[in-house]
């Protein structure tokens, strides 16, 4: 275990964290604004990957597949929020169960349409292979993942901090009743955030598909990891999602490399501790 081991593992952890950020940023915003634990979020990730596969199969264009998959799944999220979640009102348990019902429906639909095999999303030539940086051979795709998360995270941050829409969202996160009181249409904010969350998750699915593969069951495999990120970072906080993604990405990688027998335990036990000691996470607010 020399310096090279630590550097390579750190790089792998950070790139996995980048992927998690795409999934968790939407999840944390949905939770922040609507207080909904969305168990269908993993399904959005999976659907994004599958739709991208279909687009690639028909048009052969990976570049086209990315936005098409993300937008299509965002539409699914939008309809789900408008037609089913909104009429339910505020009832955490029923909301959670409803999203589970949808997760099962999406799972079955994906199985029917795309079958049960593990499929790979093959990125364009430009992103394949590896490059040498400072004497290390690093896969280009992982660098691309980190870059993508960095760019998207910056855009999200700018929108949230510098625009009027962002201020409305932050107000809804902090105190949705008060936000309604000063004339913010929180219902529309919720709709927008839910669609955005689905969009980001699907994007994660397309990008993650080139790295994890796309297969039935991936949805419920990645979902708890995304929840770990959200909880460690603090529910509703974008900064928290970024920091949480890095922590979980690194913990997951080093856990698997150093203590394979308890690797998942080392991931979820800190999550429990944080919830018990500081339920709002590292960056969440009361």
């Amino acid at each position: 275990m020399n310096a090279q081991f630590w550097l390579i593992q750190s790089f792998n952890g950070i790139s996995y964290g980048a992927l998690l950020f795409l999934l968790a940023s939407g999840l944390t915003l949905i939770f922040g604004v609507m207080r909904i634990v969305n168990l269908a979020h993993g399904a959005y990730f999976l659907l994004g990957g599958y739709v991208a596969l279909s687009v690639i199969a028909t048009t052969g264009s990976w570049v086209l597949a990315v936005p098409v998959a993300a937008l299509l799944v965002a539409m699914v999220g939008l309809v789900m929020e408008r037609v089913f979640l909104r009429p339910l009102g505020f009832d955490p348990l029923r909301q959670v169960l409803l999203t589970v019902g949808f997760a099962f429906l999406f799972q079955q639909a994906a199985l029917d349409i795309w079958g049960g095999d593990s499929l790979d999303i093959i990125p364009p030539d430009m992103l394949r292979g590896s490059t040498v940086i400072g004497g290390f051979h690093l896969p280009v795709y992982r660098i691309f993942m980190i870059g993508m998360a960095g760019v998207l995270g910056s855009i999200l941050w700018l929108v949230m901090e510098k625009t009027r829409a962002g201020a409305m969202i932050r107000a809804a996160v902090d105190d949705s009743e008060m936000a309604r009181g000063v004339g913010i249409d929180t219902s529309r904010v919720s709709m927008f955030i839910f669609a955005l969350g689905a969009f980001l998750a699907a994007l994660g699915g397309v990008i993650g598909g080139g790295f994890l593969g796309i297969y039935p069951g991936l949805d419920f495999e990645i979902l708890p990891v995304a929840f770990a990120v959200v909880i460690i970072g603090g529910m509703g906080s974008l900064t928290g999602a970024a920091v949480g993604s890095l922590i979980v990405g690194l913990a997951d990688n080093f856990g698997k490399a150093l203590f394979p027998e308890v690797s998942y335990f080392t991931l979820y036990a800190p999550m429990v501790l944080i919830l018990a000691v500081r339920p709002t996470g590292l960056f969440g607010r009361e």
Partner: protein
Amino acid sequence: MNPRGKILTVLVVLLALAVVTPFASSYLILLITQALVLGILAMSLDILLGFTGLPSLGQAAYLGMGAYLTAILATHYDFGLGWSFWVAIMLGILIGAATAALFGLFAIRATGVYFLMITLALGMCVWGLAYRWNSMTGGDNGINLPARPEFGIRLADDVTYFYVVLGFFVASLVMLYILVKSPFGRSLVGIRERELRMRILGYNTWLHKYIAFIIAGGFGGLAGVLWAHLSGHVSPQDVILATSVDALLMVVLGGPATLVGGAIGAGVVVFLRDYLSTVVPWWQYVLGGVYVLTILYLPGGLMGIPERIRRRRALSGSPAETKKLESASN
């Protein structure tokens, strides 16, 4: 229906089940036994969800602890396969309760969505150990159990095992029924309705919830032991999030705070998942659809249907009677 009528109905149904099941096909017997085991799990969760108002997303953890303990004792130590089966049952209950006692320290303080998340995380801890602790749990492959215990009677016979499971189911139902009718059970309902008021009245609500959590864990552990011997195989699949979610759905589907509702929900879910899946390929649409429809249109679950019908009738009848019904339900 008055309480006596309800008890009588449950008794008749259980008796009918005991009489009819041996004549069913061997596959159906296994399904019914499975539904009974999951029914115990669902009832244990109902104590938390229905009576105390604590929606746990990690109930599969206790099932897993009981099941893995049984499997490890049987394969590593050759224990629990004769008369010691009864000791294994006790140990399963104890490990479920002990795990809950540990988890409860973290979980009980949390409320609402935070309780959901922390129980989810605790459940994932157990799953993580089951999945990765290869030397102990066999990792992804799980553990294959030897043939079911034999002590004078052979549990390897599916009908015999069905009766044993039915016995445990009835015992659990009776114990939990006594529990929820006891002063302790009443105060749990009080906590569900308004915790602050209970605290002001001088109840130690944390302790009440903690004890309920431990009891639920114990019954979950019992379900785990029975589960391990039923399927003859224990794997991380038994502990995944989806199993915990299933347990929640069983309770919500059948009707929270009714005990038997959870068992009915377990029956419906097992039937849909294991029977319908052999008949039609699109069974999961039915399962997902049933969940969505129940949550949207049947907040009281299947057990709530008679009440709804009565209310609707009362509503179309005299307004005075409606008022009486409403005040009675409050």
